[in-house]
C-alpha cells in the first residue's frame, strides 16, 4: 500500500531568534498514510506544518512535498496541499456557501466544478441544512467541520490537519474522525497533529512523538506501545542510594530503571511478576514507598516514559 513518499523532511531546523522551535527533525510520509505528529503544546508541531505549507521558511534543512521543494517551488507545493489550520480560519460574517465559494476561487477551482464540489463537501460534513446560516452562529464543532471542508476544496493530494479536534464536542469529534478515515480510504495522504494520544492511536498509521522541537520516537502506535508502553511501573520513593538502584536494575524482569525526582520509572518485561520482585527488594532493604502505579499500555505511557512528563499539563 505504501510506496512513494509524499513528504520528505531532512534535518529541518526552524529558529525564531534565539528560540529553537524545531530542532533538526527528519521524517517521511508515505502515499495514503495517516501520519501523526504528537506532542504537548509548544513541541514544534505547528511550526513543522507551517514549513510544510510554505507559510514559514525553514532556517535549515530540506523539505519537499509532492516532490517539490517548499523553498524553491512554493507555488507547486501550494497546489498539492490542503491545510486545516489549528484556529478556525473562516469569515464569521459570511455563511458556509459564501466562505466556500470565496476560498474555492482563491484555489482556482473552476466555476463549473466549484458548486458541485461545495455540495459534496457540505454533505460530507453534514452542513447542508446550515449552508445559508452565518458562520458566527455555528457551534464550535460545526465551525471545525467547515474549516475542514475549506481545506478539502481544492481536492488536495496531501492534507494537513493541525489539532482539528480542539474544543469540539464528542459528536463532532467522531464525525471528523470518520471523515478523515473515509478521505484516507479514497487515497488522501494526511498529516495529523494532536496532543491527544488516543486520537493518534485510533487514526494514525505511524506516529512521530515530538518534544521540545525534536522527534523522540517514530513508529506505528502499536510498535511504540509494544516496545515502550507495556510493563511500566512508577514507584514513589523518598531516598534511594546507588546500591539499591543497582540491585533493582539487576532484577531479572526489569529492563531499565530511571530516576526522575521522587519517582522510579521501571520498564519491565512482565509488570505483574516484576512488581513482586521489586516489592520484595523494597521490603528486604526496608525502603519506604510513597506511591505505586502501573501505567496503562498506551501512547500516553510511551510519552511519559520517554519524556518524564504528562502530555496535558
Amino acid at each position, binding site marked *: 500500500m505504501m510506496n512513494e513518499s509524499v513528504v520528505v523532511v531532512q534535518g529541518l531546523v526552524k529558529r*525564531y531568534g534565539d528560540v529553537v522551535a524545531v530542532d533538526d527533525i527528519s521524517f517521511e510520509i508515505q502515499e495514503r498514510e495517516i501520519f501523526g505528529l504528537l506532542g504537548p503544546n509548544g513541541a514544534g508541531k505547528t511550526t513543522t506544518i507551517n514549513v510544510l*505549507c510554505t507559510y514559514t521558511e525553514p532556517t535549515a534543512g530540506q523539505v519537499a512535498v509532492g516532490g517539490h521543494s517548499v523553498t524553491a517551488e512554493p507555488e507547486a507545493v501550494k497546489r498539492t496541499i490542503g491545510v486545516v489550520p489549528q484556529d478556525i*480560519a473562516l*469569515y464569521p460574517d*459570511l455563511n458556509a456557501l459564501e466562505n466556500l465559494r*470565496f476560498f474555492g476561487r482563491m*484555489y482556482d477551482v473552476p466555476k463549473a466544478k466549484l458548486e458541485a464540489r461545495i455540495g459534496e463537501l457540505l454533505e460530507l460534513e453534514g452542513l447542508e441544512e446550515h449552508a445559508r446560516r452565518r458562520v458566527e452562529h455555528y457551534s464550535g464543532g460545526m465551525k471545525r467541520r467547515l474549516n475542514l471542508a475549506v481545506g478539502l476544496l481544492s481536492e488536495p493530494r496531501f492534507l494537513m490537519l493541525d489539532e482539528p479536534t480542539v474544543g469540539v464536542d464528542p459528536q463532532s469529534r467522531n464525525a471528523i474522525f470518520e471523515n478523515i478515515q473515509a478521505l484516507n480510504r479514497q487515497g488522501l495522504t494526511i498529516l495529523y497533529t494532536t496532543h491527544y494520544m488516543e486520537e493518534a492511536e485510533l487514526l494514525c498509521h505511524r506516529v512521530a512523538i515530538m518534544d521540545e522541537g525534536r522527534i523522540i520516537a517514530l513508529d506505528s502506535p502499536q510498535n511504540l506501545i509494544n516496545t515502550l508502553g507495556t510493563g511500566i511501573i512508577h514507584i514513589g520513593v523518598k531516598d534511594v542510594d546507588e546500591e539499591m538502584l543497582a540491585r533493582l536494575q539487576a532484577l531479572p524482569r526489569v529492563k531499565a530503571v530511571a530516576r526522575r525526582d521522587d519517582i522510579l520509572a521501571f520498564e519491565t518485561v512482565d509488570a505483574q511478576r516484576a512488581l513482586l520482585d521489586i516489592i520484595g527488594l523494597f521490603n528486604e532493604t526496608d525502603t519506604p514507598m510513597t506511591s505505586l502505579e502501573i501505567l496503562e499500555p498506551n501512547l500516553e505511557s510511551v510519552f511519559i516514559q520517554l519524556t518524564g512528563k504528562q502530555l496535558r499539563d
Partner: protein
Amino acid sequence: MKKLFHITLNELLLLRKDKMAAIWMIILPLAMTTIMGMVFSGFGGGSEAVVIDLPVVDHDGGEMATMVLDILSQTENLQVETAYDEETACQLVSDGKRAGAVVIPSDFSAAILSGQPTALELIVAPGGQTAPLLEGMVRGVTSGFSNVQTTVELAISEVQRATGSYDLDYEGIANRVVATTLERLEDPLVQTQITTVGNTEEEEFDIFDQVVPGYAVMFAMFGVLGGAGAILEEKERGTFKRLLIAPLPKYALLGGKLVAQFLLGVAQIALMFVFGALLFHVSLGDSILGWCSSRWRPAGLLPVWGCCWWRSSNRESRSTPSPHWSSWAPQPSAAPGTRCS
C-alpha cells in the same frame, strides 16, 4: 487579476454583511459634511454673506452727515438703520442685538466745512466679535473725511495767504473743495493697475483648488489605512494565513483589499458631495472631470504606500496586535470643500 477582483468583491460583501460598519460608512460622511458645512457657512447659513445691521443716529442732518450715511450704506455687508434715536441705539447695542451704532454729532457738517475737529461716535459692546470689523469700517469713513477736512483747511489758508483777504466766500470755497475732493476720492487720479502674469486660465482663485488636493492626499492615506486595517482583521480571523498559503499572488491579496477600500472611499466622498450640494450648496466647480483628475493622481500612490506597508508587515511577525476598530476602517474620508459661496 481575477483573484484580485474576487478579493475586492469579498471585501465589499463582508462590509455589506457587517451592518454596523455599513451604517457608519454612510453616517460618517454625512456627519462630516454637516459639521464642515456648519463650520464654513454658519448654522443653516446657506450661501448668504454676513450682513451687519448698523443703527446710525444723525444729530446733524447736514450735507456731510448725509454723505457719511451714503458711504456707510454703500459699504458691503453693512445695513444702515436710521430709524433709532440715540438712546434706543445704545440699548440695542448693550442688549447685544446690534454689534454697534454710529452717532453723528450735531456740528459735524459745520466742523468739517470750517476745518474744526469733530468726531463720529461709534458705540460698541465690549467683547463683540464684529466690533473690530465695524470699527475698521467707521475708521475708514472718518479718515476719508479727515482727508477732506485737511484739504479744505489747506485750501482756505492758501487762499488767505495768497489774497491776504479774510472776507471772501469761504463757505462757498469750502463746499466746492469738498465736492471736488469727494469726486476725486471716488475716481482717484492715481489708480492701481493690476497686472496678472502666468497662466491666465486659472486666474480666478478658487479655494477649492487648494482644498481638493489636500483632501485627496488625506483620502489616499485613509485608503491605505483601511487596506491595512482590513489585512489586520484577516490576521485576527486567521483567514490571512489561509490566503497566504493559497496559490495566489500577494499583489492580488493586497491590491484586492486596497481597491475595495478605494471604491468605498470614492463612494463615501460622492455621497458626501451629493449631501453637501443639496444641503449646503457646495459648489462642485466648473469641470467635474478636472476635479476628478486632480483626485485620481494622488490616489495613484496607493499601491506604492501599500507595498511599503506590505514589506514591513510581511516579516513573519508572530504577534498580531490589531486594533479591531480600525479594521473596518470607518474612513472619515474628510470633507472636501464644503465651501460657502
